[in-house]
């Protein structure tokens, strides 16, 4: 959908004074003796506090007079993305000394140092002769005067928001060392109407709450939608006329099919990391066990066979192991076992019960819902069960899902009473909690992989 190419590094316009100081700096560099020959005092600066990076994002310039609006829009989306991540502190545009700057020239860094910006984004939106939209941006380090990255993209004008998300990801990645997660979508259950007759529809939106689309009409109850990690497909559970069944839904085509034909209820489906298999629970009498179904061959393999309720399976990103919830030890707890079945190892040992485990796409954590003491908390632990950390607690948090970079967890919170649930994000440090805007009540979110 979008073409992208690297902007060339900008040749630096040095005036004579800078040149002289540059030469002087070179002189001192060459004069620096070998470290062992002249031991310097090492001054440790430990325990620095994490702090969001102050960044200035002036409105993208308009390539043609008609592009001013889209330039401001792109800037707004980028600013909002970075701010919500909690890792950046965008500086209010009212404080800027320069309001718009030319992307083709090196910025006047002094103007941005004055307002304490450490990074600066400049950009331009231009409508091309063929109707496409060209987006260019550069990311600058204000203190060193270096260009950190620069890209240009071509796209059709209606996708300007996606361009803004892609640029946000570029900035995020360059300044944090992590992949971004802004060019993603969320599938969730949209809830409308009074509490007794709630209409639940499957809905899709951008990660920031824009571009909401409804995927089902709301005649039947839908639950637990899950994104495929590699394709534009989702799987979910729907209560139709008979037992609840697991469905597969293609977002692009709108095509829908039942996954397998099993006696009894099938529920809590999730994709394998390659998107070729679906792992789920099948009800058998009062128990349920885990099964995996290959989507191409339609062959089904049983993974557990216990007189207990095994549910909520989730693959590790390398596909070799799964974590799931089971009450085989009494209360529901989290277990880990090989993806082919076999003995399972319990990893949750805290007070209360643990449910809905989900493995981070980074592989480093498993997120869960923890119930105990009248509270529902969202937490994370390492796959060996150590390092348990509660990210948010209260009445009633549930259903964690990881952003594709494994840094942010989305979940839903239902305050009870006459209200309804809404979506929240919290980063894995538990420090930055944000509400995700949705048109109505919303539950059961699932994060898509990066689109690009």
């Amino acid at each position, binding site marked *: 959908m979008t073409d992208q190419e690297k902007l060339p590094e900008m040749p630096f316009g040095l005036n004579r004074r800078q040149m002289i100081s540059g030469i*002087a*700096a070179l002189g*001192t*560099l060459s004069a*620096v003796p070998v*470290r062992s020959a002249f031991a*310097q*005092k*090492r*001054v*440790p*600066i*430990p325990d*620095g*506090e*994490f*702090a*969001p*990076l*102050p960044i200035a994002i002036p409105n993208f310039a308009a390539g043609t007079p008609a592009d001013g609006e889209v330039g401001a829009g792109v800037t707004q989306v980028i600013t909002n993305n970075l701010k919500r991540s909690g*890792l950046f502190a965008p500086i209010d545009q009212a404080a800027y000394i320069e309001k718009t700057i030319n992307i083709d020239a090196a910025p006047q860094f002094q103007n941005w*140092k004055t307002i*304490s910006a*450490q990074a600066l984004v400049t950009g331009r939106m231009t409508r091309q002769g063929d109707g496409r939209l060209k987006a260019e941006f550069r990311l600058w*380090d*204000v*203190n*060193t005067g270096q260009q950190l990255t620069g890209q240009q993209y071509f796209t059709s004008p209606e996708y300007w928001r996606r361009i803004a998300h892609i640029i946000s990801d570029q900035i995020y*990645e*360059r*300044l*944090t*060392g*992590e992949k971004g997660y802004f060019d993603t979508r969320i599938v969730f259950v949209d809830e409308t109407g009074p509490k007794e007759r709630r209409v639940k529809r499957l809905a899709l939106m951008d990660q920031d709450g824009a571009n909401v689309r409804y995927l089902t009409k709301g005649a039947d109850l839908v639950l637990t939608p899950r994104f495929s990690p590699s394709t534009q497909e989702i799987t979910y559970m729907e209560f139709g006329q008979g037992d609840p069944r697991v469905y597969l839904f293609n977002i692009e085509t709108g095509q829908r099919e039942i996954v397998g034909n099993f006696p009894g209820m099938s529920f809590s489906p999730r994709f394998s990391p390659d998107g070729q298999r679906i792992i789920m629970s099948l009800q058998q009498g009062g128990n349920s066990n885990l099964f995996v179904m290959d989507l191409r061959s339609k062959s089904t393999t049983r993974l557990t066979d216990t007189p207990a309720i095994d549910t909520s399976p989730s693959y590790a990103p390398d596909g070799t192991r799964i974590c799931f919830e089971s009450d085989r030890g009494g209360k529901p707890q989290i277990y880990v076992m090989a993806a082919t079945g076999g003995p399972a190892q319990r990893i949750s040992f805290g007070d209360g019960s643990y449910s809905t485990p989900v493995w981070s796409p980074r592989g*480093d954590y498993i997120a869960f819902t923890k119930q105990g003491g009248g509270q529902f908390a969202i937490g994370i632990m390492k796959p060996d069960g150590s390092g348990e950390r509660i990210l948010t607690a209260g009445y009633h948090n549930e259903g964690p899902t990881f952003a594709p970079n494994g*840094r942010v967890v989305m979940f839903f919170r239902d305050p009870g009473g006459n209200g309804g649930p809404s979506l929240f994000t919290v*980063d*894995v*440090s538990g420090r930055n909690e944000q509400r995700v805007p949705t048109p109505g009540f919303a539950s059961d979110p699932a994060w898509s992989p990066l689109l690009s």
Partner: protein
Amino acid sequence: MKVKIDKTLAASIALHVLVLGWGLVSFSTKAFEMTPEESVAVDVVSADQLAKVMAGMKTGKKEEPKPLVEKVAEAKPPVEDAVGKITEKPPVETEAAPPPEPKVEEKPVEKKPDPPKPVAEVKPKEEPKPIEKKPDPPKVDPIAEALKKEEKKPPPKPVVQAVKPPEPTKPKERTYDQSKIAALLDKRDPSRQSITGDTLNSNAALGLAKGKAADNSATWGAMFKSQVERCWKKPYGGIEAQQTEAEFAIRLKRDGTLEGMPVPQGSPATPYLRVYQESALRAIIECQPYNLPAAYFDEWKYFAPVFTERKT
């Protein structure tokens, strides 16, 4: 009648007796002896008592024979009251001040590191400031003047032994005008000129500590750390942050600004290490100039700040 004794019972009894008997001996109370510690007399001293104890005496024996010197330059007599900021400019003469007395230079200069006397001496504001040089022609650029100073004949050597404190000379021609009091107040911050000499010699503060120890980096390093931390926006690193470290070699000028770009030591192995190093570099550049003690300039003119997450 023969009592049949269970052998195991007998053995058990015998063993119990043995164990208990042994216990009686070995766990017997030992006299609890305490070697008396030497007592240390402790007195509670109030803050001002302490101040009195620590205060110097003007009539006491001089322990520091060398005059205070903060800047390497042509020696000139130090000013009498060595407090306040160092200023590059000579004090401005206000019209309210009487003309400086030309004889000031011969005045015996008292340069003991004495704290102010317990009873504050109320000095009239108009008291003539000790001026080191003859009055300059008006409109002289202070910098040019400072340069010229190099060529001027050396002022007389400071008189080392203070014979007696100088008598504050009362200006005779003072007239009391209530309406002009406000104008007489000096609204500038306390300031002074740096005291020059041919070698650095700081005896300004805290008794005789002169910073002669081999390593004072604990002092100025902590100052540097607290200053650079204000600008450091440490990127959030999750788990892998725990082993991160970024070292630089930096050269500072006397005024605390960087002489050149900080030189990172080693190239970053991971993307996170790279952004960590970059964030530290930004902080070092942004937070200059650094306010570090001039006495230790030789130590901090070239050193290696290490930004670290390692817990050691």
